[in-house]
């Protein structure tokens, strides 16, 4: 059995609860949990006005690139990036080895408040992801329900 990172409803509910709590305290607009491979795991707040899938891919790339740059200048304590905007700003913080927290907030919202409240949030998110990681993978989805004998192609070209 492979150790696929599988998230059950309980995980998602707790993670989303943490994000809602962060949004309420910090007055931020949108909060996401993504993984460093670029996947969006879940999000809360205003999730309609932004392209969250693309933000997840780019935010993870930006974080990883900045982390590499930090290493090149012998910085060992790198754990966040801040993009300052005129309308919306973005703060990305490392959760654990695989996860990142992304917070999008209006420019007039204090980045200090976002950082202050994000710090304990990432710790609680890390705990929940650890619980999910250690859970018996046997409780995960049964992908055998996918009918791979189906001869139709997954991706079809427009005719």
């Amino acid at each position, binding site marked *: 059995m492979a150790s696929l990172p599988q998230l059950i409803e309980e995980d998602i509910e707790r993670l989303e609860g943490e994000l809602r709590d962060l949004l309420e305290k910090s007055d931020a607009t949108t909060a996401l949990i993504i993984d460093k491979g670029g996947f969006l795991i879940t999000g809360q707040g205003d999730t309609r006005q932004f392209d969250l899938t693309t933000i997840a891919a780019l935010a993870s790339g930006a974080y990883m*690139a900045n982390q590499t740059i930090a290493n090149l200048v012998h910085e060992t304590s790198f754990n966040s990036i801040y993009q300052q905007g005129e309308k919306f700003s973005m703060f990305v913080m490392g959760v654990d080895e695989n996860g990142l927290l992304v917070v999008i907030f209006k420019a007039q919202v204090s980045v200090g408040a976002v950082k202050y409240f994000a710090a304990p949030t990432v710790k609680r998110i890390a705990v929940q992801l650890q619980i999910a990681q250690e859970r018996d993978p046997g409780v995960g989805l049964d*992908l055998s329900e996918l009918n791979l004998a189906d001869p139709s192609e997954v*991706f079809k070209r427009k005719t």
Partner: protein
Amino acid sequence: MAIINQATKELQVKIVYYGPAMGGKTTNLVQVHDHVQTAAGNKGKLVSLATSSDRTLFFDFLPIEAMSIKGFKAKFQLYTVPGQVIYNTTRQLVLRGVDGIVFVADSQYEKMAENVESFANLEDNLKTLRLNFAEIPYVLQYNKRDLPNVAPVEYLEFLLNNRDVQVPSFGATAHRCEGVFETLNMITRMLLHKYVSQSTPQYA
């Protein structure tokens, strides 16, 4: 590694197009973006982080939700890496969390050394990321078959597909969308097969 979200019944999979510079990796994504048949809203924007001369600088990114498979939502994220040798650090970043790889080789004779070098570079980068190449599904695409100076497929197979386990390979002319979907469908099926076999309970 793929993300399985049981709450939303989603499987998210990352496929990376790898290969030498100017081999046609970005062209593959452009063709998929332009020609894939999806329900409204299931195809994301093609994002290219490129230089002013359209050379890939960081990566190209295309999210697609595949046609529903037995009501199961499978989301695919297609990435390319920059092929130029100097961007190796960037290639390592993009490879993080990869589930499947499409190696796009340039079929022209004069590009053989670059093909082999890029393939060796892929192996090195996977080792650096502590990923086992033998466990990652990959396919080979021999692109630019329409050019006059191409090497025979058998020669490309000898150079690039000469390991213990041979993988599926496809001739392609990506700018005409020939071989593009065949390649993508094969890596997709290999990936889904992998996860199905991993998800089937093992009994002693």
